Each structure stands twice: as C-alpha cells, then as structure tokens.
C-alpha cells in the first residue's frame, strides 16, 4: 500500500519539494496538502511586481489545479491545520476533521511581525505577505492618498516602490540609520536612499513609531520624536517570524524555528520540515534559494536516497525594484583581519565593495552595476584564493588577464558549475546543455526546461547572455524578429515589400521574398493573408485555408470541438423578436449554454459543427448576422443608454455606438478591435480601456485610443476632442485605417501606437486634415468589399464540404 504523506502549508517550499519528488518519478506516496490560503501555490516573491502592476496574479501561479490533478495530489485550499496528534499520527483542522499520515511535512513558512504599538489593529494597517495583503494595498491605492511603509528592508522597499507606481504618495520609515542595513553597508545604502528619493518616495531613517492614530481607520502615525505624519495606509514590513506554533504545541523541539537535522527531520523522525519555519545550524532563512535546497534533500530522502543532506546555505540578496541594481552576499562587517576593496564612481552611481579575509572573498556589496555578481558568488562559495588577482578583482571578471573584453566574455568565462539562477540552483552547464540538446531558442524555453529564471527573474539577463553565447548571432533579444521560421524578414519588411513589389498573392510573396518553406506555416500564412487583404482591397481573394479555424468557419472552436455562435447586437441593443429567435434556436438545436458576453451580446455555446449552417439560417431569418466574435476585426461597440434615459447623459451615446458598429463591421484588422461609447465621463461603458473609446461631453466628444483589458491592462490615451458625430466617424475610420495599414499581424492598437508613437498617430489623424480625409476614404472604399455577412454565404451553400464528413464508412468495410 502507498504511504500517506501529509503536508501542512502550500507555499513555495512545499511546492518545490513535491515538484522535486515527482521529477524523480516517485509514486510511493498518497499526498495530501493543506494550505490556509484559498488558492493554489503561487510565486510569493512576485507579489512585488503584482503590487506595482507589472504582473498579474495569473502570471505568478506556480502550480495550477491541473498540476495537482495530474500528480494525484489531494489539495485542500483554505484549510487551516490547528493540531498535530503525534501519538495517533493525525493532523486536525479547524473544523475538527482528521487526516492520518505516515510521514508529515511541516511547511508553514513565516508570519509577518507586527509591532504591537497602539493602533496596530486599526483598519488600513496591513502586512505584506500574501495575495490578500496585495489586494488590500491595491484597493487603498485606488483611493489614492498617503501610504507609510514601516521598515526599510527588502520587503518594505519593494512595497514602497509598488505603491508609488500605483500612484500613492509614499513615505518609508526605517528604525536604523541606513536602509537595508543587514544587506548593505552604509555607502551603498546611501546611494540606494538617494535613488529611492529621486523616484519621489520619502525616506525617514532613525524613525521610531510610537503610535498609530485613528478612530476606526488609520489617520496618522506619531514618531517618538513627536513628529506626526498623515496616512491612509500603513504597511508593516519590519520582519518575519518562523511559524512554529503547531510544531511547538505538538511538543517538537523548537527554538526560533523548528529544529531540524541535516535530513530536515524534526525531533520526531516521522515529521519533516521545510521552508522558512525551519531552523538548521542556528540559522533561519528568509529567501527561497536555501528553501529549495532543503526541498531537494527531502525529496531525495523520501525517494530512498539518504545520502542527500542539507548543510546550510550562503544567501545573497537582490532587490526587485525595476531600475535599481543592487546585490549583496556574505558578511561585510569590519573586523580585524579583514580588508575591504572599494570602487566608487559617484557620478555613475556605482559602488562596489569586496571584503577579504585570508585572501579569500567573504562578502560583497554591489550597487549600480551587478554584472559580476555571479562571478563573485562563485569565488566566495568556492573559497578561491585571490592573491594573484587582488589588484584587479574589483573590476570584475572581464578585467582578469587582459584588457576589458566584450560584456559577453564574463559569462563565457564562467565555469560550468557557476550558479546562474540562485532561486532554483541552476548552474551554467545545465542551461547550456539544455539549450544545445533540446534546441532551445528563447528565455521562455529555458524557463520551461531548466526552471532557470522562473522564480524571482533577476537572472533573466544572464540567461539571455547564455542563449546568445550558445546560439551566436541567431539570438539577439532586441534584434528585429523574423515573422516566423520560414523567413528572416520581419513583419514591417514584409508589409513594405508587398506594396513596393506589388505582390498580390501568398505564393507570389513566398516566391519573391524567398520563403524557406514551400507552403509557409501557421504563423506566416494568416499574417500574409491579412497583409494582402488590407493592401489590395477588392483585388485580393481571401485565402480561407490560411485562416485560423474560427475565421474560416466564422464560429469559435471550443475545447471539446463544438463551436460558439454570437450574432451581432448593434450597440448592445436587442428586441423581443431577436431574443425570441435566439431562444428558439437554442431550444431547437439543444444548445447547452446561453451566455451574455462582456461585449453586450449573447453567446450560444456548444453548437455542433453539423448544425452551424442551420443555426445561422434561423438567425439570418430573424434579421441577425455574424457578430464576428472570432475575428481579427471589429468585435463590438459597447454603449451606455446615454441621454435617452440617463439623467447624466450628454449625447446620444447608444445611437452613436450603433452608427459606429454599422460602419465598421466586417472590417479585418491586424488584431481584434473593440470600441465603446459612454454618454458622459462617468463612463459606464468602460470606454477608456478599449481600442477606441468615445466619451460624450457637453461640448461634444472626447476620442480615446490605445486601451486594452486583456492579458495586458492599459488605459486609453486621448486622441482629441471633436464637436460633431460626423467628425467622430471621420476620425475613427481614419484611425482604424492607419492601424490597418501599419499594424503587424496580432498587434493590438495599443502595441502598434506604442511602436510608432502615440504622438505620431495624433500628428497624422488630428493635425493633418488631408491625410485624415484620405485615410477615411480608403477605409470606406475597402468596406464595400467586406461588409458581407459570412453566415449568409455559408447558408447559401458556400464551402458546404466544410460542414459534412465524407460519406460514412459502412461497417463491413471497417472490419
């Protein structure tokens, strides 16, 4: 029978242990894992970029639900274990449910320390440990106002930078005379403080909080020197404490953390522990690298390899604030018998200090330029005797043995054992051989295959350098990116050449531009089809076989092979007749799901392919046409009810939305295009996150463009103000035409505008009347060939073969 492995705490350490265990192919255990947080395992370190808005929660998930299923792990989220019954080998949760174990792993991590000053329980006082904290901070940031971060260590500074990027007025209070005093010496700390203040974050050192003031919600903070600072949000980031309560109550040996042997066993041999809750060799760790090392040892031990032991770690620190380069490792206290080597370039904002003892490196602080951190780490860990190079060691690896070489040389010179990714303990040799053996060509590939740079991300640069070393010229992250492996040309080149050489078919493009494949691939063919279609309206014949199935069949393929069908609902307005027809269709074809979409219309999901034409015919009969819900083209124009009904409405936003949709439907564009019209600045139709948005105001219309609310979230920028509906139509059609002619395939408006410059778009559309008018004219010209309902064409018999299998095979023939 399988042994029962129970894990308490579903955090980074526990997750990594399971991953290591499964990577070894081990299936000896029935695993149950309890996590207090109501979610799967995510990358806690990346909460900082989530806070600042640079990443989203979905991007930092480490193990999604699928992963637990695939690995047969029984995941219990939102369950707090309140007791360990060692005698009967059981754990008990808050509701009294019992789960028995053969082996127990405690991975409860740490909890944030809260200074117990008066007022620490007021609303608006938060810590920075999990996603709920980040949500609270973001809510506060949305209301704006002043934030005070107590604690100028790694966590506090990342919180401060994040809140500042979210638009808050931020002050950092730090008890000690200098920031990050545990990782930085005073010189580096000074540079850091200056840089942080330059970003508009105030720093007050030697600040001792006496009291947090407020009735229910925090209002201000009083320092012990009498100063009072207003605050709408207080973040306590003053340190963490190992979460040992459960272990202590169960009678395990506990000091600051849970005491653990080299096999990470607690004082009960059936109970193991991993992560920040562990105390090993009098050390508790607060960074992932050592936790991952522990995890690896436990996985090996559980798999029967008892030779693996954990012997402690030397940790290094990097600050994850975009634009600040800082690195520290080891010990840099001034001590007898120690010497420091210092390099200072105040103007360049660079400071480096190495600490030597017995001709060996014992510590390093780098600020402003951290390119040599890997090399210094290597020297330190291996205890290399550096007497030979002591004059030049501070200049870094490049400098050794000759004049400075190119920047790549430093990475090239690293030995295979040099650790590149500190978090996951991945060395250079492993990355290089993965690149070669598996033919990897991007940082993402390397992440997937080796985990390097998959955690805190600060080693991405090094990984890029290894890629370019291994792949030579074929890798250059900033080089123009070829459209696909069929051609060295990038999208822009291809667009220009299609016009310049008057290429009018896909084979002509491939022939003339010397495609390396005879028939392209699934990346270039749809792109070429779009470029030809938008360049030669009325002339080029759309190549259906070069379209993705959704656009070929004018319905969205679902994961089970059925389709979804969305009829157009002009400006989100419908009628009893239309609704009745939709209901009838749903009944008649037994369509399992009918859903209202985010674009104000109705989605019929789960339509069988053979039924598509009949469904369309019925919808056509009721006057509805395809909503192009699948198209790289106009999707929807969302509207609010505007002045017809709303007491705030200034213009006929619904009418204008319908007019826009009637004008724009059917147009193909590089990527999908969504519009919205709001009747007043209250903006109920969310126009400011659309590709093009119109906000009605008393004096007319404010035109917006370049918003997005998908993988990326971006507010629009203002194009200009106009006074009449006719102008709205002219400016919008011109803008979309410009995008159509210049955008690269799959590039949304916001990306295109960023590439060519938002200002340039304004110059062409707003400042240059002549260009605007000709663009608009070209738009209308193209539309006459495109506004044909694709459903009706199918209903009328086009491509009937698409919807029917070849005649059924008689059974006897199949035998």
């Amino acid at each position, binding site marked *: 029978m399988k042994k029962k492995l129970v894990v308490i705490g579903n955090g980074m350490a526990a997750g990594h242990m399971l991953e290591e265990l499964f990577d070894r192919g081990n299936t000896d255990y029935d695993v149950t894992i309890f996590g207090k947080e109501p979610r799967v395992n995510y990358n806690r370190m990346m909460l900082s970029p989530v806070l600042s808005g640079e990443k989203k929660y979905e991007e930092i998930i480490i193990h999604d639900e699928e992963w637990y299923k695939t690995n047969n792990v029984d995941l219990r989220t939102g369950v707090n274990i309140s007791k360990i019954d060692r005698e009967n080998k059981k754990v008990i949760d808050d509701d009294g449910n019992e789960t028995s174990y053969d082996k127990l792993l405690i991975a409860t991590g740490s909890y944030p320390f809260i200074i117990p000053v008066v007022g620490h329980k007021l609303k608006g006082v938060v810590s920075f440990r999990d996603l709920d904290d980040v949500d609270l901070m973001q809510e506060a940031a949305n209301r704006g106002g002043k934030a005070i971060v107590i604690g100028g260590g790694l966590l506090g500074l990342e919180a401060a930078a994040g809140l500042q990027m979210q638009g808050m007025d931020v002050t950092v209070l730090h008890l000690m005379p200098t920031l990050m005093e545990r990782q930085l010496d005073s010189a580096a700390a000074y540079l850091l403080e200056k840089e942080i203040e330059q970003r508009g974050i105030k720093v007050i050192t030697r600040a001792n909080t006496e009291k947090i003031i407020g009735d229910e919600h925090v209002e201000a903070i009083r320092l012990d020197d009498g100063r009072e600072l207003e605050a709408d949000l207080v973040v306590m980031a003053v340190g963490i404490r190992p979460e040992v309560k459960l272990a202590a109550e169960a009678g395990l040996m506990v000091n600051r953390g849970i005491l653990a042997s080299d096999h990470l066993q607690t004082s009960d041999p059936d109970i193991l522990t991993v992560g920040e809750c562990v105390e090993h060799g009098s050390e508790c760790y607060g960074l992932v690298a050592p936790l991952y090392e522990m995890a690896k040892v436990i996985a090996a031990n559980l798999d029967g390899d008892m030779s693996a032991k954990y012997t402690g770690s030397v940790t290094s620190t990097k600050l994850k604030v975009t634009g600040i380069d800082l690195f520290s490792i080891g010990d840099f206290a001034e001590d007898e018998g120690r010497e420091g080597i210092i390099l200072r370039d105040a103007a360049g904002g660079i400071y480096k200090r190495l600490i030597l003892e017995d001709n060996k490196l014992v510590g390093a602080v780098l600020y402003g330029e951290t390119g040599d951190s890997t090399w210094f780490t290597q020297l330190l860990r291996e205890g290399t005797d550096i007497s030979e190079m002591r004059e030049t060691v501070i200049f870094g690896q490049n400098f050794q043995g000759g004049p400075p070489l190119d920047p790549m040389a430093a990475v090239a010179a690293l030995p295979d054992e040099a650790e590149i990714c500190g978090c996951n303990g991945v060395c250079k040799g492993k990355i290089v051989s993965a690149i070669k053996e*598996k033919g990897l060509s991007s940082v993402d590939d390397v992440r997937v*295959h080796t985990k390097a740079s998959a955690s805190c991300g600060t080693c991405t640069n090094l990984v890029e350098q290894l890629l370019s070393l291994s792949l030579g010229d074929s890798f250059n992250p900033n080089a123009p990116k070829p459209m696909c492996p069929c051609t060295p040309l990038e999208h822009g080149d291809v667009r220009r050449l299609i016009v310049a050489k008057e290429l009018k078919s896909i084979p002509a493009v491939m022939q003339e531009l010397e495609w390396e*494949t*005879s*028939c*392209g*691939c*699934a990346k270039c*063919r*749809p792109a070429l089809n779009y470029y030809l279609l938008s360049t030669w309206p009325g002339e080029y014949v759309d190549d*259906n*076989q*070069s*379209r*993705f*199935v*959704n656009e*070929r*069949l004018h319905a969205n*393929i679902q*994961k089970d*092979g059925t389709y979804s069908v969305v009829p157009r609902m002009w400006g989100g307005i419908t009628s009893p007749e239309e609704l009745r027809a939709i209901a009838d269709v749903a009944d008649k074809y037994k369509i399992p799901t009918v859903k209202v979409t985010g674009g104000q219309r109705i989605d019929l999901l789960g339509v069988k392919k053979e039924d598509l034409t009949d469904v369309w015919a019925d919808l056509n009969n009721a006057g509805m046409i395809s909503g192009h819900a699948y198209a790289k083209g106009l999707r929807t124009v969302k509207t609010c009810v505007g002045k017809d009904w709303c007491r705030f409405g200034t213009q006929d936003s619904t009418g204008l939305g319908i007019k826009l949709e009637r004008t724009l439907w059917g147009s193909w564009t590089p990527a999908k295009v969504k519009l919205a019209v709001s009747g007043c600045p209250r903006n109920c139709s969310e126009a400011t996150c659309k590709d093009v948005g119109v906000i009605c105001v008393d004096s007319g219309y404010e035109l917006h463009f370049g918003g997005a609310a998908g993988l990326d979230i971006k507010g629009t920028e203002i194009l200009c103000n106009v006074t009449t509906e006719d102008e709205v139509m002219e400016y919008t059609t011109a803008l979309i035409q410009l995008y159509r002619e210049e955008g690269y395939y799959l590039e949304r408006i916001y990306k295109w505008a960023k590439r060519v410059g938002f200002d340039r778009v304004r110059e062409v559309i707003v400042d240059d009347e002549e260009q605007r008018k000709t663009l608009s004219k070209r738009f209308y010209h193209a539309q006459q060939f495109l506004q044909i309902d694709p459903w009706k064409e199918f209903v009328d018999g086009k*491509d009937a*073969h698409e919807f029917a*299998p*070849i*005649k*059924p*095979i008689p*059974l006897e*023939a*199949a035998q």
Partner: protein
Amino acid sequence: MTKENNWVELCQLSEIPERGCRVVVTDEIKIAIFRTHTDDVYAIEDKCPHLGGALSEGIVHGAQVTCPLHNLVINLVNGEALGPEPMCVKSFDVKKEDGKVYLDLVPVKKEAA
C-alpha cells in the same frame, strides 16, 4: 508499405480542399484526410495527442498541420508531433488513383524503435 492493404474508396481528390482536410467518421474513430499544396494525401486520427484538439481544423502547411487549440505541429507523414515531447497520433495508409482517394482503415503499425 509492407502490409496487405484493404482499400476503401472515399471520394474524388477534388472534394478535399487544397491545403485542407475532410473527415471520415467510423463507429470507433474520426480520421482526418489531408490534401497538401502538392496534392499529396495523408490520413491521421483526428485527435491531437496533446488535449484531443480536432487536427482536421488546423492550418495545413507543407506536409504538416498545426493544431487549432494550442498550436502543436503534427507531421502528416507519420503522425508524430514536432516538439520537445515525443507524441504521436495514429496514421493510416491512403492512396490516389484516377483522381479518387482510397483509405485503409487499419492503422499503420509503428515499428518499435
């Protein structure tokens, strides 16, 4: 081809779109019949080895098809996926004769490597 083939007549070659596909449905299996830009025909099971996507709906390029669900590329000649993981779908013998397409419903056995 080493085995004895048992051919079933399917349709005219012209009934399959160029760089396209038609499906044959039997009680047990869906088989996708592809026609390339060079008028070669291939037959593989209509089920992506990744998560079961309908390969018949993919974009056909050369003797390959890209799955519409997550872009896995399958070699039509032997049903093998291109990519880091070895994955494969069943493939079937097909032939063209006098403008007609014939299929053998017994999958091609892969020789053990």
